[in-house]
């Protein structure tokens, strides 16, 4: 082969190599910028939480000083919380159990009621079903704070005063419309042919619901379940209003006790809040993959 031929073959290779180098440099640059942005995002997200952690690690007299770092960090506050060593925390584990109970009940009932409703509206296409799903949305028109006093009165009427079930009812009411919304959006990606062929094979609606609809809805179930759990876990106004005794209280109400007077061991309060925040974080971590899939409106193409 002559030198010129070699040169003519090598030139395009060199050009593409240079283009590749440029692209890689650009990619590395954008990646670096992205990482810097990531750091900023972490600072943005973590600041208030850092403040909480800082207070929880400080001794009572160190809170509200000039420090941006806890001067004498200690986990004494966490120990107090876990051993129920303070007056307001007397029933902490019992209240934690109440929160778990409420969270589990709200999640389960929301998923059940919302999936049944969206099955009826979206799959069985009941006439005027859209009326129900629109009416569900109206729940959000009325802000929760507006409904607080009527709710209190009504729970008295239903005999549910100071009962965890009054809170469960309130939160299911607020979580379900969102569930119906997500399930109907998600459900559009489940082919209706599946239902119809099952029906032709003689399946009852209940069987279609259990064996076809629910399994295919799984990611959306996780998404809505997480939403409902977090709503119940962190909801405050209704739990505050409807639960009054130490034994029936949930942790958010117990936390609010710290605001009872103008004095409080804030380090204990923040430690309590952090302990309380761990379960939903754990659940989010476990289910995050499914959760994103579930929120995907179009579903995953087979």
């Amino acid at each position: 082969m002559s030198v010129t031929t070699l040169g003519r073959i090598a030139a395009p290779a060199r050009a593409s190599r240079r283009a590749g180098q440029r692209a890689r440099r650009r990619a590395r640059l954008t990646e670096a910028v992205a990482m810097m942005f990531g750091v900023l995002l972490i600072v943005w997200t973590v600041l208030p939480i850092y403040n909480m952690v800082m207070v929880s690690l400080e001794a009572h007299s160190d809170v509200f000083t000039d420090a941006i770092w806890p001067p004498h960090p200690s986990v004494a506050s966490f120990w107090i919380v876990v051993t129920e060593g303070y007056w307001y925390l007397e029933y902490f584990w019992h209240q934690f159990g109440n929160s778990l109970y409420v969270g589990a009940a709200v999640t389960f009932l929301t998923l059940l009621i919302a999936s049944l409703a969206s099955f009826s509206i979206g799959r069985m296409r009941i006439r005027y079903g859209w009326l129900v799903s629109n009416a569900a949305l109206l729940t959000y028109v009325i802000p929760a704070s507006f409904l607080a006093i009527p709710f209190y009165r009504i729970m008295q009427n239903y005999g549910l005063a100071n009962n965890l079930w009054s809170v469960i009812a309130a939160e299911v009411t607020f979580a379900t419309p969102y569930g119906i919304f997500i399930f109907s959006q998600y459900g559009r990606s489940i082919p209706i042919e599946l239902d119809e062929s099952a029906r032709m094979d003689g399946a009852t609606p209940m069987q279609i619901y259990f064996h076809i609809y629910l399994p295919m809805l799984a990611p959306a179930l996780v998404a809505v379940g997480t939403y409902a759990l977090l709503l119940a876990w962190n909801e405050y106004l209704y739990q505050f209003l409807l639960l009054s005794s130490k034994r029936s209280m949930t942790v958010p109400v117990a936390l609010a006790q710290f605001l009872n007077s103008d004095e409080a061991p804030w380090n204990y309060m923040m430690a309590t809040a952090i302990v309380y925040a761990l379960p939903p974080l754990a659940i989010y971590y476990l289910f995050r993959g499914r959760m994103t899939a579930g929120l995907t409106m179009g579903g995953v193409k087979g």
Partner: protein
Amino acid sequence: MGNLSRRAVIRASVQLAAAGALSRPYIANAANTTASAWWVQGFAQEEDVAFRQVVEDYQKASGNTIDYSIIPYAPERQKIVSAITSGDVPDLFTANPAEIVALYAWQGKLVDVGDVVETQKSQFSETALLSAQCYNSVTKRRGTYGVPFTGAVLPIHVWKSLVEKAGYKIEDIPKTWDPCWDFFKDVQKKLRAQGARNVYGQGLQVTANGVDPNNTFHYFLIAYGGQDIVTKDGLLHVDDPKVRAAVIKALTYPTTSLKQGFVPPSAVNWNDADDNNAFHSKLIVMDLDGTISTEVAIIKDQEDYNDIVTMGLPLSNEGQPVPSQLTVVNALIPVGAKNVAVAKDFLKYFIQPKVNNEWLKVGLGRNIPVMPQIVKDDPWWFADPHRKAYTTQGVIGSTVPAYWAFNPAYSQVQTEHVWSTAWNDILNNGMTADAAADKAFARIKEIFAKYPIVQS
């Protein structure tokens, strides 16, 4: 506050049982019936223990049952409002906030409890009795709608170590009004000169959150001679030049202090706890704040506890004693209560001086009695320096009732924070004290117009 020691609990039970044994004459021979009660959770665990003991002893002595719930402060407020609105009321509850006795009495929603108060009438201070005599717009008469059982005033809390660090002694604090507050400006200047960046001399709550801003304003108002802004008959006197002058001074002093840098700027938006937070962290040298919860909260830290000096109010600029406005807390029986008789019976038991005294003492004396003879008979109230100062100010010293007792309209003036708004107008909206005062007067007149009291 750690767990209550067994010894303390046993001591409490014995004392309260003894009190119960001595009080038989007042216990009705009532049939075995139950009354429901909502009681506000105390600021310290001991207060709840004390209440539980009282109930137990009452139940044993009378055979009645009190089905009580101890509810934290803010939820109890909400529950009371919801209950009165919906008609589903307990048989008795604590006035939370204190001024609802006037509001609900006006609306005819409370049962007249004059017969209960009558049993101890000679024991109650005049301020306490006046605080329970509220106007009922339905019957168009005043009646006794609350049973007073405790009260609160605002003492001055001072860090002795900070005063000394500035080179002064507590005894150096001037005895008259303006000079007393000005003293702390000097303390701040000296401390700042030593390099402390974030220390402020005066902890004056010029915010619009909580009850203490109203109290702070009133204390200054009364010191400057404006006590008669609302008189016993419920009439408003904002057109009185003496009142007007006092209002303008009360609006001017704290705001000028803040503008000069002697009050933390964030005071304009403190929530209820922020002044305590600032004080505990030694970021303010003194705090004008209700009750001695500031001290009781750190009772375990002996060094700091002894470092705080609790003082009553200085004399007015003219050298006259300044009466402290006493916020009296009443127990209320709502209309619609199912068992008024037992509720009344319990309250009669509760306000017996011996029972009341024991209840207050087990509660660490954070609440003071509204019956002066109690503290005159019991030296415990003067044993601890903080308690001594607080008791002297709130029980022995001269006190005046809150203005809402005279006219329920004033409770709205307080909850709307009309005076705090005036402070804010001066600080943030550039108004002069005169203009802010006029604006406040206009609003107060509007509010008072809704509550016409027929003079008998």
